[in-house]
């Protein structure tokens, strides 16, 4: 008995020793890190600047930048279309530390609506970066009119199509097992496409994201975290479920599908909102049409697991809103304060949630025949059809 405290003290000592030594080592590295003379070669400072956002004002531009390099960086001059131009900068000494943000403001530049501009930024050491404006259009400010525009946009591409898809629910009880399996498989196909599409969109944003954020790892990491998180949540919930003939399980699956789709729609909203904000109206309109058609299938995906049970109308509406409403949040965020960082995080979450749903459905009873087999023609055709539908409607985007 008396040995116990001694033993535990020893354990603590051995446990903490490596951490203490590591701490000393880190201190030494930080201390010596500035001693460039210790390096075997003379190294010039590494300068990297990330262009975060360009706001287009009636007679000028505002460029939000971030120092994405390890060393301090000072902006010397700014040019527009290869002409040096008067600008002011926040902070006033034009010097940014590692990951520090700055705002470059150009006033009195009379840009032409609809034309393209390249804003050149040159550092003290002559390194250059370009901030591209593909189509110059004044950036909308958050007015009530604009807010309504983005809300209605979100309703059109997210809420209405999902609700229309939900209307297929009353048809489902009339269908035989085989057709229900086909529809479940169709849902899986739709979701696989959506998941891959979400990841693709996410990876596109990682390219624009500052290198320091490790966008690709962030995207996959967030996705994996959500996937595992939802699985844990589902297992934790299982204990509380009463044996009610699978109704709770069906609801839970529906709920997860709705949540995954909701996160995906948030991402879609971001893309549409930012397309409009960046002046790409034709792109924006095409996206709206594409997503609207695309998203009607999402409603179907949500109600297929509920085919066999009776669910109240309020629950159905709730599921629809869970999947549809985030679109509005997405268009608003995309429209007014778009950030690549949040886009990558949202897309990562959405991909994780969607693949989690695919996992649940494929583990659950809805794709199985009475003897538990899954390798059925209707499943194959369903998955194929789901991917094909998404592919074809995707051609419109």
């Amino acid at each position, binding site marked *: 008995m008396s040995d116990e405290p001694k033993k535990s003290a020893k354990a603590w000592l051995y446990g903490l020793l490596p951490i203490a030594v590591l701490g000393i080592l880190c201190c030494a590295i930080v201390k010596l890190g500035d001693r460039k003379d210790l390096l075997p070669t003379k190294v010039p400072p590494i300068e990297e600047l990330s262009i975060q956002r360009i706001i287009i004002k009636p007679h000028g531009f505002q460029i939000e930048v971030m120092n994405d390099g390890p060393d301090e960086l000072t902006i010397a001059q700014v040019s527009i279309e290869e002409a040096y131009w008067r600008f002011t900068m926040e902070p006033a000494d034009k010097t940014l530390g590692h990951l520090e943000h700055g705002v470059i403001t150009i006033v*009195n530049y009379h840009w032409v609506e609809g034309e393209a501009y390249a804003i050149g930024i040159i550092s003290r050491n*002559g390194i*250059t970066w370009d901030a591209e404006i593909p189509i110059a259009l004044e950036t909308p400010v958050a007015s009530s009119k604009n807010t309504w525009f983005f809300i209605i946009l979100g309703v059109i591409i997210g809420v209405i199509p999902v609700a229309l898809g939900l209307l297929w629910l009353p048809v489902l009880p009339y269908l035989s097992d085989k057709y229900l399996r086909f529809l479940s498989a169709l849902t899986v196909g739709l979701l696989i496409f959506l998941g891959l599409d979400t990841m693709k969109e996410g990876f596109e944003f990682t390219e624009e994201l500052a290198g320091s954020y490790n966008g690709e790892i962030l995207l996959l990491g967030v996705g994996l975290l959500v996937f595992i998180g939802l699985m844990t949540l589902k297992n934790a919930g299982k204990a509380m479920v009463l044996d009610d003939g699978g109704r709770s399980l069906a609801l839970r699956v529906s709920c997860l599908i709705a949540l995954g789709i909701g996160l995906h729609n948030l991402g879609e909203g971001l893309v549409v909102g930012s397309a409009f904000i960046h002046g790409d109206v034709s792109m924006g309109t095409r996206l709206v049409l594409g997503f609207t058609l695309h998203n009607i299938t999402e409603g179907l995906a949500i109600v297929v697991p509920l085919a066999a049970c009776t669910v109240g109308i309020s629950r159905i509406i709730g599921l629809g809103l869970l999947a549809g409403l985030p679109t509005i949040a997405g268009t608003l965020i995309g429209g007014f304060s778009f950030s690549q960082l949040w886009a990558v995080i949202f897309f990562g979450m959405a991909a994780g949630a969607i693949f989690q749903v695919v996992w649940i459905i494929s583990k659950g009873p809805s794709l199985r025949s009475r003897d538990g087999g899954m390798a059925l023609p209707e499943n194959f055709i369903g998955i194929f059809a789901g991917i094909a539908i998404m592919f074809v409607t995707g051609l419109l985007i």
Partner: protein
Amino acid sequence: MDSDMGVIGDCTSGTLDPDLFLTHFDWGKVTKDLGDGKKRREYTFFAVDKEIEIAPGLFFPSWAYTSETPHDQDGNQIPGPGGSIGHVPGPTIRCREGDEIYIKFINQNNHPHTIHFHGYHSSEMDGSMKDQFVFQNETFEYEFMAEPFGLHLYHCHSVPLKRHIHKGLYGTYIIDPKEGREPARELVMVMNGFDTNFDGDNEIYAVNSVANHHMRYPIKVKKDELVRIYLVNTTEFDPINSFHLHANFFYENRTGTSMKAEYFTDTVMFCQGERSILEMRFPKTGLYMFHAHQSEFAELGWMGNFEVV
């Protein structure tokens, strides 16, 4: 000058001296009178590393020539541009037709360099062959007769040539005709550019290196006085550069090798190494712009003003 266009701020490092350079002529140290008005002029030149401020807050790691002890026409020692420790463009060498020129060149930079002069000289003095490259801490003595009279230039002819010239190793070499030229307000303008990110394209254009310097500090000239510009193009990467003067015309004598002007115009265009003597008078006071008539170069720093008083 409060314009929205052009670089902002002012150069504060003192690494370049465009105002001094504009009217700086290094006549060398006269060591012998050769009779008939001819002199032996001796120079000591160095090639050094120098970080120069080519636009406010923008620095370029140049290779620069420097003259150890610049002298004026009367033999007095004068300060050189850049505090005599390297300037881009290099010091303007000035002499008379028939003078004997001797230049002791000491390379203090860790790359091999030469001084290749335009003008008559023997093959051994060309500074272009491999065995004529001057390595770090080595010395080479250039000696030749100053001819023909005119406006010439000198530059490094070490390889890679493009890099050695664009890094800043060039300058003006003026040989006056025996009979001299009409007294005038004389200005040296070397049209140059800097590729700061080394992508083979210039980020900055200027006369005498500093972007928009004469927008901030217009060149003061007197009404009706004769103004003579020694205009040289050393711009790397771009096939041509040009000079355009507002609200006035000038006489152009290409390469300055004859006393008679060939053109009366307001815009001239040179390839790299081409040069002309321009002469003009301003009949009215006020601000008169001059710039490259390639708008791109003008907007990237090659633009200034004359202020006629």
